[in-house]
Protein backbone atom coordinates (compact mmCIF):
# COMPACT_ATOMS: atom_id res chain seq x y z
CA UNK A 1 0.00 0.00 0.00
CA UNK A 2 2.78 2.41 1.02
CA UNK A 3 4.67 1.50 -2.15
CA UNK A 4 1.70 2.20 -4.38
CA UNK A 5 1.25 5.55 -2.69
CA UNK A 6 4.85 6.55 -3.21
CA UNK A 7 4.70 5.54 -6.89
CA UNK A 8 1.57 7.60 -7.25
CA UNK A 9 3.24 10.57 -5.65
CA UNK A 10 6.22 10.19 -7.96
CA UNK A 11 3.92 9.96 -10.98
CA UNK A 12 1.96 12.97 -9.86
CA UNK A 13 5.20 14.89 -9.48
CA UNK A 14 6.32 13.86 -12.97
CA UNK A 15 3.00 14.87 -14.41
CA UNK A 16 3.20 18.26 -12.76
CA UNK A 17 6.67 18.72 -14.24
CA UNK A 18 5.44 17.75 -17.69
CA UNK A 19 2.43 20.02 -17.29
CA UNK A 20 4.68 22.96 -16.43
CA UNK A 21 7.01 22.21 -19.30
CA UNK A 22 4.03 22.32 -21.68
CA UNK A 23 2.01 25.14 -20.20
CA UNK A 24 5.05 27.36 -19.77
CA UNK A 25 6.25 27.01 -23.33
CA UNK A 26 7.06 30.71 -23.23
CA UNK A 27 9.45 30.37 -20.34
CA UNK A 28 12.02 28.56 -22.47
CA UNK A 29 15.46 30.12 -21.99
CA UNK A 30 15.75 33.16 -24.24
CA UNK A 31 19.21 32.35 -25.46
CA UNK A 32 18.40 29.05 -27.04
CA UNK A 33 18.94 29.16 -30.80
CA UNK A 34 15.86 30.26 -32.67
CA UNK A 35 14.11 27.19 -33.88
CA UNK A 36 11.65 29.25 -35.87
CA UNK A 37 10.62 29.04 -39.45
CA UNK A 38 12.90 28.06 -42.34
CA UNK A 39 12.01 27.61 -46.02
CA UNK A 40 12.23 24.05 -47.32
CA UNK A 41 12.98 24.86 -50.95
CA UNK A 42 12.31 27.22 -53.84
CA UNK A 43 9.00 25.62 -54.66
CA UNK A 44 7.68 26.25 -51.16
CA UNK A 45 8.55 29.95 -51.36
CA UNK A 46 6.97 30.17 -54.78
CA UNK A 47 3.78 28.47 -53.64
CA UNK A 48 3.43 30.38 -50.38
CA UNK A 49 4.29 33.85 -51.65
CA UNK A 50 4.73 34.35 -55.39
CA UNK A 51 1.95 32.09 -56.66
CA UNK A 52 -0.78 34.03 -54.82
CA UNK A 53 -0.29 36.81 -57.38
CA UNK A 54 1.69 35.33 -60.25
CA UNK A 55 -0.52 32.27 -60.77
CA UNK A 56 -3.85 34.13 -60.66
CA UNK A 57 -3.27 36.96 -63.15
CA UNK A 58 -2.72 39.57 -60.46
CA UNK A 59 0.96 39.76 -61.35
CA UNK A 60 2.53 38.66 -64.64
CA UNK A 61 3.39 35.04 -65.24
CA UNK A 62 7.02 34.50 -64.23
CA UNK A 63 7.56 30.75 -64.51
CA UNK A 64 8.89 29.09 -67.65
CA UNK A 65 10.26 32.35 -69.01
CA UNK A 66 13.91 31.67 -68.30
CA UNK A 67 14.20 34.87 -66.30
CA UNK A 68 17.83 35.37 -65.23
CA UNK A 69 18.57 34.79 -61.54
CA UNK A 70 20.10 38.25 -61.18
CA UNK A 71 16.92 39.85 -62.49
CA UNK A 72 14.72 37.84 -60.12
CA UNK A 73 16.93 38.78 -57.21
CA UNK A 74 16.77 42.45 -58.18
CA UNK A 75 12.98 42.46 -58.32
CA UNK A 76 12.53 40.46 -55.11
CA UNK A 77 14.83 42.72 -53.12
CA UNK A 78 13.67 46.05 -54.57
CA UNK A 79 10.06 45.31 -55.41
CA UNK A 80 8.62 46.55 -58.66
CA UNK A 81 5.82 49.09 -58.78
CA UNK A 82 3.08 47.48 -56.64
CA UNK A 83 5.06 44.34 -55.97
CA UNK A 84 6.43 44.58 -52.44
CA UNK A 85 10.15 44.19 -51.76
CA UNK A 86 11.16 41.11 -49.76
CA UNK A 87 13.86 41.42 -47.14
CA UNK A 88 16.75 39.12 -46.32
CA UNK A 89 14.92 38.46 -43.03
CA UNK A 90 11.98 37.03 -45.01
CA UNK A 91 13.83 35.21 -47.79
CA UNK A 92 17.53 34.71 -47.05
CA UNK A 93 20.05 34.79 -49.90
CA UNK A 94 20.36 31.03 -50.10
CA UNK A 95 16.60 30.55 -50.28
CA UNK A 96 16.36 33.33 -52.85
CA UNK A 97 18.88 31.49 -55.04
CA UNK A 98 16.73 28.35 -54.78
CA UNK A 99 13.63 30.36 -55.58
CA UNK A 100 15.28 31.87 -58.66
CA UNK A 101 16.28 28.43 -59.81
CA UNK A 102 12.75 27.17 -59.34
CA UNK A 103 11.23 30.09 -61.24
CA UNK A 104 13.72 29.81 -64.09
CA UNK A 105 13.29 26.07 -64.62
CA UNK A 106 11.38 25.55 -67.83
CA UNK A 107 10.42 21.91 -67.59
CA UNK A 108 8.26 21.67 -64.49
CA UNK A 109 4.77 23.02 -64.34
CA UNK A 110 3.45 24.55 -61.17
Amino acid at each position, binding site marked *: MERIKSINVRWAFMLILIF*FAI*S*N*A*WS*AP*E*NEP*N*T*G*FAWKDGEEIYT*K*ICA*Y*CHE*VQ*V*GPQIRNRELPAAYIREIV*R*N*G*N*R*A*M*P*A*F*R*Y*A*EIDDESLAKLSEFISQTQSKH
Partner: protein
Amino acid sequence: MTSKYIALPKGVSEKNFDAAISDFRRVLGDASVLTSAEQLAPYIKTMMPVPDADHTPSAALLATTVEQIQKIVAICNQYKVPIWMISTGKNLGYGSAAPAERGQVVLDLKRMNRILEVDKDLAFALVEPGVTYQQLYDYIKEHKLGLWLSMPAPSAIAGPVGNTLDRGVGYTPYGEHFLFACGMEVVLANGEVLRTGMGSMPNSNTWQVFKWGYGPYLDGIFTQSNYGIVTKFGFWLMPEPPAFKPFVIQYQHEEDIVEIVETIRPLRISGVIPNAVVIAHALYEAPVKANRSDYVSGPGSIPDEAVYRIMKDHKLGIWNVYAALYGTQEQIDVNWKIVKQAFGKSGKAKILTEQEAAEDPAFIYRAKLMRGEMTLTEFSLYNWRKGGGSMWFAPVSQARGSETLKQMALTKQILAKYGLDYSGEFIVGMRDMHHIVDVLYDKTDPEQTKAAYQCFDELLTEFSARGYGTYRVNTAFMDKVADTYGPVQRNIHKTLKKALDPNGILAPGKSGIR
Protein backbone atom coordinates in the same frame (compact mmCIF):
# COMPACT_ATOMS: atom_id res chain seq x y z
CA MET B 1 32.95 63.70 -47.16
CA THR B 2 30.94 60.70 -48.14
CA SER B 3 29.49 58.59 -45.39
CA LYS B 4 29.71 54.82 -45.22
CA TYR B 5 26.01 54.86 -44.29
CA ILE B 6 23.11 55.60 -46.61
CA ALA B 7 21.54 57.72 -43.87
CA LEU B 8 22.27 58.70 -40.29
CA PRO B 9 19.87 59.05 -37.36
CA LYS B 10 18.91 62.64 -36.58
CA GLY B 11 21.44 64.28 -34.24
CA VAL B 12 23.83 61.30 -34.17
CA SER B 13 27.38 61.83 -35.47
CA GLU B 14 28.92 59.27 -37.77
CA LYS B 15 31.54 58.52 -35.12
CA ASN B 16 28.90 57.73 -32.51
CA PHE B 17 26.92 55.73 -35.02
CA ASP B 18 30.06 53.70 -35.83
CA ALA B 19 30.37 52.88 -32.15
CA ALA B 20 26.68 51.92 -31.90
CA ILE B 21 26.95 49.71 -34.99
CA SER B 22 29.97 47.86 -33.68
CA ASP B 23 28.13 47.28 -30.38
CA PHE B 24 25.10 45.98 -32.31
CA ARG B 25 27.44 43.64 -34.19
CA ARG B 26 28.85 42.33 -30.94
CA VAL B 27 25.33 41.43 -29.80
CA LEU B 28 23.87 40.11 -33.06
CA GLY B 29 26.86 39.06 -35.18
CA ASP B 30 27.90 40.78 -38.41
CA ALA B 31 25.36 39.03 -40.62
CA SER B 32 22.42 40.42 -38.62
CA VAL B 33 23.43 44.07 -38.79
CA LEU B 34 22.64 45.45 -42.23
CA THR B 35 24.07 48.77 -43.37
CA SER B 36 24.83 48.55 -47.10
CA ALA B 37 22.55 50.12 -49.71
CA GLU B 38 21.93 46.70 -51.22
CA GLN B 39 20.94 45.12 -47.92
CA LEU B 40 18.69 48.03 -47.01
CA ALA B 41 16.94 48.35 -50.39
CA PRO B 42 13.88 46.31 -49.30
CA TYR B 43 13.35 48.66 -46.34
CA ILE B 44 13.16 51.73 -48.54
CA LYS B 45 10.35 51.02 -50.97
CA THR B 46 7.03 52.49 -49.93
CA MET B 47 3.79 53.20 -51.76
CA MET B 48 3.53 56.75 -50.38
CA PRO B 49 3.78 59.91 -52.54
CA VAL B 50 6.86 61.25 -50.78
CA PRO B 51 10.56 60.90 -51.64
CA ASP B 52 12.06 57.60 -50.49
CA ALA B 53 14.87 59.65 -48.97
CA ASP B 54 12.45 60.89 -46.26
CA HIS B 55 12.09 57.34 -44.95
CA THR B 56 15.50 55.81 -45.63
CA PRO B 57 16.86 53.81 -42.68
CA SER B 58 20.47 53.97 -41.54
CA ALA B 59 20.65 50.27 -40.68
CA ALA B 60 18.54 47.23 -39.95
CA LEU B 61 18.98 44.84 -37.03
CA LEU B 62 17.74 41.26 -37.20
CA ALA B 63 17.15 40.20 -33.61
CA THR B 64 15.82 36.81 -32.58
CA THR B 65 15.74 36.80 -28.77
CA VAL B 66 14.42 38.96 -25.95
CA GLU B 67 17.88 39.14 -24.45
CA GLN B 68 19.32 40.54 -27.69
CA ILE B 69 16.56 43.14 -27.77
CA GLN B 70 17.33 44.16 -24.18
CA LYS B 71 20.96 44.69 -25.17
CA ILE B 72 19.91 46.62 -28.28
CA VAL B 73 17.83 49.10 -26.26
CA ALA B 74 20.76 49.60 -23.89
CA ILE B 75 22.99 50.51 -26.84
CA CYS B 76 20.30 52.79 -28.28
CA ASN B 77 19.99 54.60 -24.95
CA GLN B 78 23.73 55.01 -24.74
CA TYR B 79 24.11 56.55 -28.21
CA LYS B 80 20.60 58.06 -28.50
CA VAL B 81 19.98 55.98 -31.62
CA PRO B 82 16.27 55.63 -32.52
CA ILE B 83 14.87 52.28 -33.69
CA TRP B 84 11.75 51.56 -35.74
CA MET B 85 10.13 48.21 -34.93
CA ILE B 86 8.62 45.90 -37.50
CA SER B 87 7.34 42.35 -37.10
CA THR B 88 6.58 40.97 -40.56
CA GLY B 89 7.07 44.41 -42.12
CA LYS B 90 4.29 44.36 -44.68
CA ASN B 91 2.44 47.51 -43.64
CA LEU B 92 1.76 48.19 -47.30
CA GLY B 93 -0.08 51.43 -47.98
CA TYR B 94 0.75 52.57 -44.43
CA GLY B 95 4.53 52.92 -44.82
CA SER B 96 5.66 49.32 -45.51
CA ALA B 97 8.89 48.38 -43.70
CA ALA B 98 10.40 51.87 -43.86
CA PRO B 99 10.87 53.93 -40.71
CA ALA B 100 8.79 57.01 -39.89
CA GLU B 101 11.83 59.26 -40.07
CA ARG B 102 15.00 59.24 -42.13
CA GLY B 103 17.95 57.63 -40.39
CA GLN B 104 16.07 55.49 -37.87
CA VAL B 105 17.44 51.97 -37.45
CA VAL B 106 14.88 49.31 -38.34
CA LEU B 107 14.55 46.61 -35.70
CA ASP B 108 13.34 43.77 -37.91
CA LEU B 109 11.79 40.94 -35.88
CA LYS B 110 10.81 38.78 -38.85
CA ARG B 111 13.29 36.09 -37.87
CA MET B 112 11.99 35.94 -34.30
CA ASN B 113 9.28 33.62 -35.49
CA ARG B 114 8.47 30.76 -33.19
CA ILE B 115 4.92 29.60 -32.71
CA LEU B 116 5.13 29.13 -28.95
CA GLU B 117 1.75 27.61 -28.26
CA VAL B 118 -1.54 26.89 -29.94
CA ASP B 119 -4.14 25.54 -27.55
CA LYS B 120 -6.81 23.56 -29.37
CA ASP B 121 -9.29 23.46 -26.47
CA LEU B 122 -9.06 27.05 -25.34
CA ALA B 123 -8.54 28.19 -28.94
CA PHE B 124 -5.67 30.62 -28.49
CA ALA B 125 -2.19 31.14 -29.88
CA LEU B 126 0.97 32.64 -28.46
CA VAL B 127 3.47 33.69 -31.11
CA GLU B 128 6.60 35.73 -31.68
CA PRO B 129 6.51 38.84 -33.90
CA GLY B 130 7.92 37.30 -37.09
CA VAL B 131 5.25 34.61 -37.45
CA THR B 132 3.25 35.07 -40.65
CA TYR B 133 -0.41 34.11 -41.06
CA GLN B 134 0.73 31.53 -43.62
CA GLN B 135 3.11 29.95 -41.09
CA LEU B 136 0.40 29.75 -38.46
CA TYR B 137 -2.14 28.52 -40.99
CA ASP B 138 0.19 25.69 -42.03
CA TYR B 139 0.88 24.80 -38.39
CA ILE B 140 -2.82 24.60 -37.59
CA LYS B 141 -3.48 22.43 -40.65
CA GLU B 142 -0.50 20.17 -39.99
CA HIS B 143 -1.57 19.57 -36.40
CA LYS B 144 -5.26 19.27 -37.34
CA LEU B 145 -6.28 21.78 -34.71
CA GLY B 146 -9.58 22.79 -36.31
CA LEU B 147 -9.06 26.51 -35.73
CA TRP B 148 -9.57 29.44 -38.09
CA LEU B 149 -7.51 32.59 -38.45
CA SER B 150 -8.79 36.06 -39.12
CA MET B 151 -6.38 38.03 -41.23
CA PRO B 152 -6.08 41.15 -43.42
CA ALA B 153 -6.11 40.86 -47.20
CA PRO B 154 -2.29 40.50 -47.54
CA SER B 155 -2.66 37.39 -45.35
CA ALA B 156 0.16 35.10 -46.45
CA ILE B 157 2.95 37.66 -46.17
CA ALA B 158 1.70 39.69 -43.17
CA GLY B 159 1.41 38.55 -39.55
CA PRO B 160 -0.85 38.72 -36.50
CA VAL B 161 1.56 40.69 -34.29
CA GLY B 162 2.25 43.63 -36.61
CA ASN B 163 -1.30 43.71 -37.90
CA THR B 164 -2.89 43.75 -34.45
CA LEU B 165 -0.36 46.20 -33.03
CA ASP B 166 -1.43 48.61 -35.78
CA ARG B 167 -5.05 47.72 -34.94
CA GLY B 168 -5.74 46.12 -38.30
CA VAL B 169 -8.87 44.28 -39.35
CA GLY B 170 -9.90 40.98 -40.94
CA TYR B 171 -13.13 39.49 -42.20
CA THR B 172 -14.25 36.62 -39.96
CA PRO B 173 -16.28 37.01 -36.75
CA TYR B 174 -12.89 37.76 -35.12
CA GLY B 175 -12.24 40.57 -37.63
CA GLU B 176 -11.66 43.40 -35.14
CA HIS B 177 -8.29 41.92 -34.23
CA PHE B 178 -7.37 43.85 -31.13
CA LEU B 179 -10.66 42.77 -29.49
CA PHE B 180 -9.31 39.21 -29.67
CA ALA B 181 -5.76 39.97 -28.44
CA CYS B 182 -4.94 38.45 -25.07
CA GLY B 183 -1.62 39.09 -23.38
CA MET B 184 1.65 40.58 -24.61
CA GLU B 185 5.27 40.45 -23.63
CA VAL B 186 6.94 43.82 -24.08
CA VAL B 187 10.56 44.92 -23.81
CA LEU B 188 10.48 48.44 -22.44
CA ALA B 189 12.95 51.17 -23.34
CA ASN B 190 14.78 50.63 -20.01
CA GLY B 191 15.27 46.95 -20.86
CA GLU B 192 12.67 45.61 -18.43
CA VAL B 193 10.37 42.88 -19.71
CA LEU B 194 6.67 43.33 -19.00
CA ARG B 195 4.07 40.63 -19.46
CA THR B 196 0.70 42.28 -19.56
CA GLY B 197 -2.50 41.12 -17.85
CA MET B 198 -2.28 37.73 -16.13
CA GLY B 199 1.22 37.27 -17.58
CA SER B 200 2.63 39.52 -14.85
CA MET B 201 1.98 36.83 -12.26
CA PRO B 202 4.66 34.13 -12.04
CA ASN B 203 3.35 30.70 -13.05
CA SER B 204 -0.08 31.96 -14.10
CA ASN B 205 -1.67 29.81 -16.79
CA THR B 206 -4.38 32.34 -17.64
CA TRP B 207 -2.26 34.81 -19.63
CA GLN B 208 -3.96 33.95 -22.94
CA VAL B 209 -7.47 33.44 -21.58
CA PHE B 210 -8.20 36.53 -19.45
CA LYS B 211 -7.43 39.89 -20.97
CA TRP B 212 -7.64 42.33 -18.12
CA GLY B 213 -5.34 41.17 -15.29
CA TYR B 214 -5.45 43.49 -12.31
CA GLY B 215 -5.29 47.27 -12.24
CA PRO B 216 -5.20 49.54 -15.30
CA TYR B 217 -5.31 47.55 -18.53
CA LEU B 218 -2.02 48.20 -20.32
CA ASP B 219 -2.17 46.32 -23.64
CA GLY B 220 -3.80 49.23 -25.45
CA ILE B 221 -0.88 51.58 -24.88
CA PHE B 222 1.38 49.26 -26.85
CA THR B 223 -0.77 49.44 -29.99
CA GLN B 224 -0.24 52.17 -32.61
CA SER B 225 2.42 53.40 -30.23
CA ASN B 226 6.12 53.59 -29.44
CA TYR B 227 6.14 52.71 -25.75
CA GLY B 228 7.64 49.25 -26.02
CA ILE B 229 8.79 46.40 -28.26
CA VAL B 230 6.31 43.55 -28.33
CA THR B 231 8.14 40.21 -28.30
CA LYS B 232 5.31 37.76 -27.60
CA PHE B 233 1.68 38.12 -28.42
CA GLY B 234 -1.37 36.07 -27.47
CA PHE B 235 -4.68 36.05 -29.29
CA TRP B 236 -7.83 34.02 -29.68
CA LEU B 237 -8.66 31.79 -32.62
CA MET B 238 -12.06 30.82 -33.88
CA PRO B 239 -13.08 27.15 -33.68
CA GLU B 240 -13.80 25.90 -37.19
CA PRO B 241 -17.59 25.95 -37.57
CA PRO B 242 -19.36 22.85 -38.88
CA ALA B 243 -20.85 24.90 -41.71
CA PHE B 244 -20.06 28.18 -43.49
CA LYS B 245 -22.22 30.09 -45.94
CA PRO B 246 -20.70 33.08 -47.72
CA PHE B 247 -22.94 35.35 -49.77
CA VAL B 248 -22.94 38.62 -51.65
CA ILE B 249 -25.77 41.09 -51.98
CA GLN B 250 -25.61 43.55 -54.86
CA TYR B 251 -27.26 46.94 -55.21
CA GLN B 252 -27.37 49.16 -58.27
CA HIS B 253 -27.36 52.76 -56.96
CA GLU B 254 -24.87 54.61 -54.78
CA GLU B 255 -27.67 56.00 -52.58
CA ASP B 256 -28.65 52.42 -51.75
CA ILE B 257 -25.82 52.43 -49.19
CA VAL B 258 -28.40 53.97 -46.82
CA GLU B 259 -30.69 50.97 -47.11
CA ILE B 260 -27.76 48.54 -46.92
CA VAL B 261 -26.39 49.94 -43.69
CA GLU B 262 -29.82 50.31 -42.08
CA THR B 263 -30.52 46.66 -42.94
CA ILE B 264 -27.17 45.29 -41.83
CA ARG B 265 -26.73 47.14 -38.53
CA PRO B 266 -29.44 45.30 -36.58
CA LEU B 267 -28.34 41.96 -38.04
CA ARG B 268 -24.75 42.67 -37.09
CA ILE B 269 -25.43 44.02 -33.59
CA SER B 270 -27.71 41.11 -32.76
CA GLY B 271 -25.17 38.62 -34.10
CA VAL B 272 -27.32 37.16 -36.88
CA ILE B 273 -24.47 38.12 -39.20
CA PRO B 274 -21.40 37.55 -37.04
CA ASN B 275 -18.50 38.58 -39.27
CA ALA B 276 -16.89 41.83 -40.31
CA VAL B 277 -19.12 42.49 -43.33
CA VAL B 278 -17.68 44.39 -46.28
CA ILE B 279 -19.70 46.79 -48.40
CA ALA B 280 -17.44 47.17 -51.41
CA HIS B 281 -17.94 49.77 -54.14
CA ALA B 282 -17.81 48.53 -57.74
CA LEU B 283 -14.44 50.25 -58.18
CA TYR B 284 -12.94 48.27 -55.29
CA GLU B 285 -13.98 44.99 -56.89
CA ALA B 286 -13.54 45.89 -60.57
CA PRO B 287 -9.75 45.40 -60.72
CA VAL B 288 -10.20 41.67 -60.06
CA LYS B 289 -12.11 41.43 -63.33
CA ALA B 290 -11.61 44.51 -65.49
CA ASN B 291 -8.93 46.83 -66.86
CA ARG B 292 -9.42 50.53 -66.32
CA SER B 293 -7.88 51.29 -69.72
CA ASP B 294 -10.69 49.34 -71.43
CA TYR B 295 -13.18 51.90 -70.14
CA VAL B 296 -11.43 55.22 -69.88
CA SER B 297 -8.32 56.95 -71.15
CA GLY B 298 -6.56 60.21 -70.40
CA PRO B 299 -6.37 62.08 -67.13
CA GLY B 300 -9.17 62.56 -64.64
CA SER B 301 -11.25 60.28 -62.48
CA ILE B 302 -13.39 57.62 -64.06
CA PRO B 303 -16.87 58.90 -65.01
CA ASP B 304 -19.98 57.26 -63.46
CA GLU B 305 -21.11 56.18 -66.91
CA ALA B 306 -17.97 54.04 -67.33
CA VAL B 307 -18.50 52.54 -63.87
CA TYR B 308 -22.01 51.47 -64.89
CA ARG B 309 -20.61 49.81 -67.99
CA ILE B 310 -18.07 47.92 -65.87
CA MET B 311 -20.87 46.78 -63.54
CA LYS B 312 -22.88 45.49 -66.45
CA ASP B 313 -19.99 43.76 -68.19
CA HIS B 314 -18.63 42.13 -65.05
CA LYS B 315 -21.76 41.38 -63.04
CA LEU B 316 -20.99 43.77 -60.21
CA GLY B 317 -23.28 45.88 -58.09
CA ILE B 318 -22.33 49.48 -57.42
CA TRP B 319 -22.31 48.14 -53.85
CA ASN B 320 -21.37 44.53 -53.18
CA VAL B 321 -22.09 43.38 -49.65
CA TYR B 322 -19.95 40.38 -48.65
CA ALA B 323 -20.95 38.54 -45.48
CA ALA B 324 -21.19 34.99 -44.18
CA LEU B 325 -23.04 32.77 -41.76
CA TYR B 326 -21.18 30.38 -39.48
CA GLY B 327 -22.38 27.53 -37.26
CA THR B 328 -24.31 24.31 -37.59
CA GLN B 329 -26.42 23.86 -40.73
CA GLU B 330 -29.57 24.34 -38.61
CA GLN B 331 -28.32 27.65 -37.22
CA ILE B 332 -27.34 28.79 -40.70
CA ASP B 333 -30.75 27.83 -42.13
CA VAL B 334 -32.57 29.88 -39.50
CA ASN B 335 -30.29 32.91 -39.89
CA TRP B 336 -30.36 32.71 -43.68
CA LYS B 337 -34.13 33.09 -43.58
CA ILE B 338 -33.76 36.22 -41.45
CA VAL B 339 -31.10 37.67 -43.78
CA LYS B 340 -33.14 36.97 -46.92
CA GLN B 341 -36.24 38.48 -45.40
CA ALA B 342 -34.43 41.63 -44.26
CA PHE B 343 -32.72 42.25 -47.60
CA GLY B 344 -35.69 41.12 -49.65
CA LYS B 345 -38.08 43.78 -48.34
CA SER B 346 -37.39 46.64 -50.76
CA GLY B 347 -36.88 44.50 -53.85
CA LYS B 348 -33.62 46.31 -54.69
CA ALA B 349 -31.20 43.65 -53.50
CA LYS B 350 -29.80 40.85 -55.62
CA ILE B 351 -28.74 38.03 -53.31
CA LEU B 352 -26.12 35.55 -54.55
CA THR B 353 -24.63 32.54 -52.81
CA GLU B 354 -21.93 30.04 -53.71
CA GLN B 355 -24.47 28.38 -55.98
CA GLU B 356 -24.66 31.36 -58.32
CA ALA B 357 -21.25 32.98 -57.73
CA ALA B 358 -18.86 30.05 -57.27
CA GLU B 359 -16.93 30.97 -60.43
CA ASP B 360 -16.78 34.70 -59.76
CA PRO B 361 -13.17 35.72 -58.94
CA ALA B 362 -14.26 38.56 -56.61
CA PHE B 363 -16.62 36.25 -54.72
CA ILE B 364 -13.95 33.55 -54.48
CA TYR B 365 -11.37 35.78 -52.80
CA ARG B 366 -13.91 37.41 -50.52
CA ALA B 367 -15.16 33.99 -49.41
CA LYS B 368 -11.54 33.00 -48.68
CA LEU B 369 -11.02 36.09 -46.55
CA MET B 370 -14.21 35.37 -44.59
CA ARG B 371 -12.97 31.88 -43.70
CA GLY B 372 -9.34 32.81 -43.05
CA GLU B 373 -7.85 31.19 -46.17
CA MET B 374 -4.67 32.57 -47.71
CA THR B 375 -5.08 34.85 -50.74
CA LEU B 376 -3.36 37.92 -52.14
CA THR B 377 -5.93 38.55 -54.85
CA GLU B 378 -6.74 42.00 -53.45
CA PHE B 379 -3.39 43.18 -54.83
CA SER B 380 -5.21 43.41 -58.16
CA LEU B 381 -6.21 46.88 -56.91
CA TYR B 382 -2.80 48.05 -58.06
CA ASN B 383 -3.42 47.07 -61.65
CA TRP B 384 -6.07 49.81 -61.74
CA ARG B 385 -3.85 52.90 -61.92
CA LYS B 386 -0.57 50.96 -62.12
CA GLY B 387 2.69 52.48 -60.94
CA GLY B 388 2.49 51.14 -57.38
CA GLY B 389 1.14 54.22 -55.57
CA SER B 390 -1.27 53.66 -52.70
CA MET B 391 -2.36 55.21 -49.42
CA TRP B 392 -5.18 53.91 -47.29
CA PHE B 393 -7.57 56.66 -46.30
CA ALA B 394 -9.37 55.17 -43.32
CA PRO B 395 -11.95 57.35 -41.58
CA VAL B 396 -14.32 55.85 -39.04
CA SER B 397 -18.05 56.18 -39.60
CA GLN B 398 -21.10 55.42 -37.51
CA ALA B 399 -22.96 52.38 -38.83
CA ARG B 400 -25.79 54.68 -39.91
CA GLY B 401 -26.89 54.87 -43.51
CA SER B 402 -27.08 58.65 -43.79
CA GLU B 403 -23.52 58.98 -42.45
CA THR B 404 -22.08 56.48 -44.88
CA LEU B 405 -23.63 58.25 -47.83
CA LYS B 406 -22.20 61.57 -46.63
CA GLN B 407 -18.70 60.14 -46.23
CA MET B 408 -18.80 58.39 -49.58
CA ALA B 409 -19.98 61.51 -51.43
CA LEU B 410 -17.37 63.73 -49.78
CA THR B 411 -14.53 61.29 -50.50
CA LYS B 412 -15.57 60.86 -54.10
CA GLN B 413 -15.82 64.60 -54.63
CA ILE B 414 -12.34 65.30 -53.20
CA LEU B 415 -10.74 62.42 -55.13
CA ALA B 416 -12.35 63.63 -58.37
CA LYS B 417 -10.90 67.11 -57.84
CA TYR B 418 -7.46 65.51 -58.12
CA GLY B 419 -8.35 63.13 -60.93
CA LEU B 420 -8.45 60.04 -58.72
CA ASP B 421 -11.06 57.26 -58.47
CA TYR B 422 -13.19 56.23 -55.50
CA SER B 423 -11.91 52.71 -54.71
CA GLY B 424 -13.74 52.40 -51.43
CA GLU B 425 -15.34 49.93 -49.07
CA PHE B 426 -16.91 49.95 -45.65
CA ILE B 427 -15.90 47.26 -43.16
CA VAL B 428 -18.72 46.88 -40.68
CA GLY B 429 -17.82 46.54 -37.01
CA MET B 430 -20.99 46.52 -34.96
CA ARG B 431 -21.77 50.15 -34.33
CA ASP B 432 -18.92 51.53 -36.38
CA MET B 433 -17.58 51.08 -39.86
CA HIS B 434 -14.03 51.45 -41.09
CA HIS B 435 -14.47 53.42 -44.30
CA ILE B 436 -11.45 52.18 -46.27
CA VAL B 437 -10.46 53.95 -49.46
CA ASP B 438 -7.41 52.97 -51.43
CA VAL B 439 -6.07 56.24 -52.82
CA LEU B 440 -4.52 54.69 -55.93
CA TYR B 441 -2.15 56.65 -58.12
CA ASP B 442 0.75 56.07 -60.49
CA LYS B 443 3.90 56.66 -58.47
CA THR B 444 5.99 56.75 -61.64
CA ASP B 445 4.05 59.85 -62.73
CA PRO B 446 5.31 62.92 -60.81
CA GLU B 447 2.13 64.94 -61.47
CA GLN B 448 -0.16 62.21 -60.18
CA THR B 449 2.11 61.67 -57.20
CA LYS B 450 1.88 65.33 -56.30
CA ALA B 451 -1.88 65.29 -56.76
CA ALA B 452 -2.21 62.19 -54.58
CA TYR B 453 -0.32 63.87 -51.74
CA GLN B 454 -2.46 67.00 -51.90
CA CYS B 455 -5.61 64.95 -52.22
CA PHE B 456 -4.82 62.89 -49.13
CA ASP B 457 -4.01 66.03 -47.18
CA GLU B 458 -7.33 67.57 -48.17
CA LEU B 459 -9.24 64.39 -47.32
CA LEU B 460 -7.80 64.48 -43.80
CA THR B 461 -8.50 68.19 -43.42
CA GLU B 462 -12.08 68.04 -44.67
CA PHE B 463 -12.99 64.90 -42.76
CA SER B 464 -11.60 66.08 -39.46
CA ALA B 465 -13.35 69.44 -39.91
CA ARG B 466 -16.61 67.46 -39.89
CA GLY B 467 -15.61 65.41 -36.86
CA TYR B 468 -14.66 62.29 -38.80
CA GLY B 469 -11.43 60.82 -37.41
CA THR B 470 -9.16 58.33 -39.17
CA TYR B 471 -8.31 55.08 -37.39
CA ARG B 472 -4.85 54.57 -38.86
CA VAL B 473 -2.60 56.36 -41.31
CA ASN B 474 0.62 56.04 -43.30
CA THR B 475 3.89 57.29 -41.84
CA ALA B 476 3.92 60.50 -43.94
CA PHE B 477 0.74 61.85 -42.32
CA MET B 478 0.96 60.68 -38.70
CA ASP B 479 1.51 64.13 -37.20
CA LYS B 480 -1.35 65.62 -39.14
CA VAL B 481 -3.75 62.94 -37.89
CA ALA B 482 -2.44 63.22 -34.32
CA ASP B 483 -3.32 66.92 -34.45
CA THR B 484 -6.89 66.19 -35.49
CA TYR B 485 -7.46 64.43 -32.15
CA GLY B 486 -6.62 67.62 -30.24
CA PRO B 487 -3.90 68.85 -27.86
CA VAL B 488 -5.02 67.06 -24.69
CA GLN B 489 -4.63 63.59 -26.17
CA ARG B 490 -1.31 64.58 -27.80
CA ASN B 491 -0.08 65.84 -24.47
CA ILE B 492 -1.00 62.64 -22.62
CA HIS B 493 0.73 60.59 -25.30
CA LYS B 494 3.82 62.74 -24.85
CA THR B 495 3.72 62.46 -21.06
CA LEU B 496 3.59 58.68 -21.30
CA LYS B 497 6.44 58.74 -23.81
CA LYS B 498 8.64 60.80 -21.51
CA ALA B 499 7.95 58.46 -18.62
CA LEU B 500 8.51 55.21 -20.50
CA ASP B 501 11.18 56.23 -22.98
CA PRO B 502 12.94 59.39 -21.78
CA ASN B 503 15.66 59.21 -24.45
CA GLY B 504 13.09 58.82 -27.22
CA ILE B 505 14.75 55.73 -28.70
CA LEU B 506 11.62 53.79 -29.67
CA ALA B 507 10.04 54.68 -33.02
CA PRO B 508 9.92 58.47 -32.58
CA GLY B 509 7.09 59.87 -34.71
CA LYS B 510 4.79 56.81 -34.51
CA SER B 511 1.24 58.18 -34.26
CA GLY B 512 2.84 61.63 -33.95
CA ILE B 513 4.40 60.72 -30.57
CA ARG B 514 7.92 61.91 -29.77
